[in-house]
């Protein structure tokens, strides 16, 4: 599997704090990778570094084999890296359709507003938002706003899509619907980076999980391996619990 995105020894400092510490990993085309870790582990920083919102302090980032450091965030969006954010970011006084059309118009290289709107309509049907296409974005429910974020990102025709806590604040049935969407997107060949707190979501949707802890990558592998990884348990549940767990594992 060829890599769509490769991180080589990427670090990011905020003053004296090393928010990302020598991260090296690569993402294959069509993979769904979960990024998990406790609060403050550097998950969102990782997304911000890739999208150049907060550029890396050191290290190399390769997209499709080409280095992308030094590009501005709007260029990053144009070359095919899209993201949704933890806090939804709609254009409140544009219609839902125009919100999505904006993504097509400015990132996907669609030239006319009319073409962008028709391309947006496809995404709205795909994400199940066609029924509210002509409502103002400000009037949507939280679940629909999250879908709007997704539709907007998809309209950008990304090769890499980073979903930052796209399920936070949704109820169980909404999460199931969102998971179906994520699988459908991955099936169309888009690489997905899923940043999540909810273990259930990550274990369900991802073919691979990477665990961050205090800015370092402490584990990277298939879900089954990650769940049993001592370092991961330690990061999440503390050293004492990990030691007890190890004993239980050895005796059984």
């Amino acid at each position, binding site marked *: 599997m060829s890599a769509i995105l490769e991180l080589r020894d990427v670090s990011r400092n905020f003053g004296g704090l090393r928010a990302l510490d020598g991260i090296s990993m690569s993402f294959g085309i069509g993979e769904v990778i979960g990024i998990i870790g406790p609060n403050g582990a550097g998950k969102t920083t990782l997304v911000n570094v890739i*999208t150049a919102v907060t550029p890396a302090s050191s290290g190399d980032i390769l997209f499709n084999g080409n280095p992308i450091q030094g590009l*501005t*965030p*709007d*260029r990053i*969006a*144009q070359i095919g890296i899209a*993201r949704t*954010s933890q806090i939804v*970011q*709609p*254009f*409140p*006084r*544009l219609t839902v359709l*125009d919100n999505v*059309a*904006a*993504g097509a*118009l*400015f*990132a996907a290289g669609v*030239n*006319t*507003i009319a073409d962008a709107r028709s391309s947006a309509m496809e995404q709205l049907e795909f994400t199940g938002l066609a029924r509210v296409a002509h409502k103002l974005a400000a009037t949507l429910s939280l679940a629909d706003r999250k879908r709007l974020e997704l539709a*907007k990102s998809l309209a*950008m025709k990304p090769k890499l899509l980073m979903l930052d806590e796209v399920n936070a604040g949704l109820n169980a049935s909404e999460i199931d619907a969102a998971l179906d969407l994520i699988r459908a997107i991955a099936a169309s060949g888009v690489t997905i980076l899923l940043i999540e707190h909810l273990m259930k979501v990550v274990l369900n949707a991802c073919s691979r999980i990477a665990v961050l802890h205090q800015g370092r990558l402490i584990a990277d592998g298939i879900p089954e391996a990650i769940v049993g990884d001592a370092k991961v348990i330690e990061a999440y549940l503390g050293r004492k619990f990990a030691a007890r767990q190890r004993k239980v594992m050895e005796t059984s």
Partner: protein
Amino acid sequence: MNALFCSKPAHIVVAVLFLLAFLFFPWVANNYLLRIGTTMLMYSALALSWNFIGGFAGYPSFATAAFFGLGAYVGGILQNKGIPAPLAWLLAGLLVTIFAVVIGRIILHLKGHYFAIASLVIGDVLREIINGMTSLTGGGMGLNLAAQKMGVTEQAQFFYFSMLTVAGLALVTTVLLDRSRLGFGLRCIEQNEDAAVRIGINTDRFKTAAFMLSSTFVGMAGAVYVSWTGYIDPGEAFEVLISVKPIVMTLLGGAGTILGPVYGAFLFLLLEETVWRNFLNIHSGILGLLVVLLILFLPRGILNTNLWSVVEAHARVLRTYFRLLPRFQGINLWAWVVRIIRNIRHQS
């Protein structure tokens, strides 16, 4: 919000009649009215221009006076060097546009209040520079232009149509912008700049374009103005009200709409002239009060508000007041207000 006034046939009829009235106005108006009409068109051009940066992009620019004064001086100096007036106006517009691009690249990374202050200072800096360049600009003594070789009425008509052309160009630009990729992007920036970057909008370039558009027609209007009045001095050219009035007008008419700035300019100057003629002594106080009331009742401007709903909402309050009126004859508020207004009129 997109093209609100285009959405209803009634609005289109009103808009077309309104614009046609401007076209045929010189044939029915005397010179006094023509003068007011010319001022109205000048402020329409200024308000339409502010709408590009303030309405579409949502950046509160106070640079209008800077562009206006610079355009006036460039136009005046060029004409004194023997360049025909229309060419001088075009060159003034061009130079002001270039100036705006340079300044825009410097100050457009600022946001909100910081941007407002930075844009406000440009005019002050230019005023001091022009004050100092006495040999070229006449300094504090002002710049005189040779009188036009025209009759009084022809001159009034000539400048009316010149301003109409500048305002017309600004309006056409607004219509084109509203339908363009640039206009779409500016509306995105206005509503959420971070999200705009994230979907691939080069916000620096878009904002600079809006700032540039907001300068061109102001510079031209300044140049036409100096030809019209034949005299300009730094205090008048960079008067801060030249920056403030277009903002009030645009907000009154509806920021980000197409015809809002023109309606706003019309309404504002109509109010200003009426109040000025009736309350000579305290006209600015009354005008201020009226503007406050208008903003209070129409905070988003005429074209961004469903006027009928405003009338309905306040009608309920008024109906209650008038129903209860007989019981409160002793403190008849309405009669009281009328009496105050009469007294004020007698005094002035």
